[in-house]
């Protein structure tokens, strides 16, 4: 009754080609953005910002990048953690070595370096496909682990291998309180998400999807596989690189190569699969699920144990967390293999027909 496009007639090409062609969608998106910018800061404590909202925003950005590569272009990547690491360390080097480097420019340059790294390790995708490619992208992961641990130049010759940044500011405003960090991440995420949403419905986005669905057929109808695959790698690793730089600069503050291990790559892929491949919205759902679940389990399990009279030690909690995490993922894949975004679109479809299902 409330959500349907009946009666919304488009009279110009501009109106027909908007990002969100349905009026209700436009309002919903505006409402969500407004809530995120205005209502959330009013209601949330510093702990919630640090523990949930900031990691969620950054991970959502990273998942968005991975989704472009995996969900839209169909190239499975297990090296996303490496792209994040390259983004973080490149931004760090620009930030520390160039005097007076603005934070935003450093982040973007980190993304550019990550894109170059992504193109380099995307080159095998022109020849290697599917699961072979997935394993091959692990090469990027282990190479970056090694590179940032052993080559001291990248870590500014820090003796412990751990690097840190301080004195962050954007246009003269200091980024030190959780609220300002949250707003910075949110602004970057909103801009990137809108750009990505626009990109995937453009010519290049459709090329990616054609490659994903059947690369030989796509090549036959005149899509250049090399161009399409490498641009997907570049765009994806740019976004992932910016997310990595934010992860290091804003969330961690001080980090070492282990922060971007292969575990992170797996988690990013989980976000994409659980959220929904080939869906911008899905990246947000997936990131929320993967970020919130461990925190929830961590808090909830001791409480549950106390309720039934069992003292649960932290070690057991950690292991039970692993088990529940794994079991939930398998369960999710069984009940909804197309991800949470599929549930979302089913819900929208139901809304359209409601209250008359036929």
């Amino acid at each position, binding site marked *: 009754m409330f959500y349907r496009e009946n009666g919304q007639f488009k009279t110009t090409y501009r109106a027909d080609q908007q990002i969100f062609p349905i009026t209700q969608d436009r309002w919903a998106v505006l409402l969500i953005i407004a809530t995120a910018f205005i209502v959330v800061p009013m209601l949330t404590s510093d702990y919630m910002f640090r523990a949930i909202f900031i990691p969620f925003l950054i991970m959502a950005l990273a998942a968005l990048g991975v989704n472009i590569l995996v969900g839209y272009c169909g190239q499975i990547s297990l090296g996303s953690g490496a792209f994040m690491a390259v983004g973080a360390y490149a931004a760090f080097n620009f930030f520390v070595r160039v005097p007076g480097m603005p934070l935003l420019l450093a982040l973007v340059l980190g993304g550019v370096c990550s894109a170059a790294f992504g193109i380099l390790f995307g080159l095998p995708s022109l020849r290697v496909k599917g699961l072979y490619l997935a394993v091959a992208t692990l090469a990027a992961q282990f190479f970056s682990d090694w590179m940032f641990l052993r080559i001291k130049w990248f870590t500014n010759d820090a003796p412990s291998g751990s690097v840190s940044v301080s004195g962050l500011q954007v246009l003269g405003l200091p980024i030190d309180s959780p609220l300002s960090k949250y707003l910075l991440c949110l602004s970057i995420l909103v801009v990137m998400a809108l750009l990505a949403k626009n990109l995937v419905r453009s010519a290049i986005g459709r090329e990616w999807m054609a490659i994903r669905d059947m690369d030989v057929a796509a090549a036959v109808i005149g899509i250049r596989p090399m161009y399409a695959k490498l641009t997907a790698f570049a765009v994806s690793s740019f976004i992932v690189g910016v997310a990595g730089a934010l992860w290091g600069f804003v969330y961690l503050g001080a980090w070492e190569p282990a922060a971007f291990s292969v575990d992170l790559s797996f988690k990013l892929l989980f976000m994409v699969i659980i959220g929904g491949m080939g869906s911008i919205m899905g990246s947000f759902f997936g990131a929320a699920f993967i970020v919130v679940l461990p925190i929830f389990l961590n808090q909830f399990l001791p409480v549950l144990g106390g309720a039934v009279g069992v003292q649960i030690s932290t070690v057991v909690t950690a292991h039970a967390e692993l088990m529940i995490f794994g079991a939930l993922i398998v369960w999710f894949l069984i009940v909804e*293999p197309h991800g949470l975004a599929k549930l979302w679109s089913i819900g929208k479809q139901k809304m359209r027909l409601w209250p008359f299902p036929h």
Partner: protein
Amino acid sequence: MAFFLETLFGGLMAGMLYSLVALGFVLIYKASGVFNFAQGAMVLFAALAMARFSEWIPLHVGISSPVIANLLAFIGAGILMFVVAWLIERLALRHLVNQEGTTLLMATLGISYFLDGLGQTIFGSDIYKIDVGMPKEPILAFENLFEGGILINKEDLYAALIAAVLVGLLTVFFQKTVTGRALRAVADDHQAAQSVGIPLNRIWFIVWCVAGVVALVAGMIWGSKLGVQFSLTTVALRALPVVILGGLTSVPGAIIGGLIIGVGEKLSEVFLGPYVGGGIEIWFAYVLALLFLLYRPQGLFGEKIIDRV
């Protein structure tokens, strides 16, 4: 020259051990098209079970002979792996038939998280040791050829022998038995195999059991070498380049791939490592595999990938 040969032999032995883990991947991929990321977790789980059983059996049952205790522990761990295989097939894979490769891959990753947690909950998370009585002292060989001869680790030699025997047995199983033929049929085409009356669920159960036993042997050997601890799961990550180098569908490929990776790793670490700061063996294996893949995208012995539109 002697040093070179010594490194070469060390690499070959290490390669055999990698191929043991790689075999687990290949077996399951061949028969069900699932790229089983849980293989590392299975190795850890089996090794933990084996280590703890061999510790508990003398304590609670009162069998003091280490040989029998180890044998019983091996059998017990084997049965446990069968149970795990049955549960995986029953609870997860049966419901994921006809899903895409990525979804299955993610499911096995989920299983690997679960097994990691479960194994450490049941068996504890300290470092345990497996002592199956493998001799530790090195032997000298070719003393008449080179001055001083070359050192070969006896333990590695035995491990490589066990691996070779296991591979031989698996080859016979796959090529000569009725079940093996059914397995190969399922690997070729699920639907065609089903239509001639091969029970898919049972075949998958068998394959996961075999992979479980391979994981147990790998866990036993690696565990007695490195100690049974959480880092054993990374062995699977180091065996991945072996799998893609040899080809996902080829048992001999896993062996040859393992030897190439083992030798490449050791030689690069010894002769190239000092110039770039060391520790390069793990990514070097991947880059080596990648270079081979650029030449043959389906791995050295994998089935040719044919794209049809």
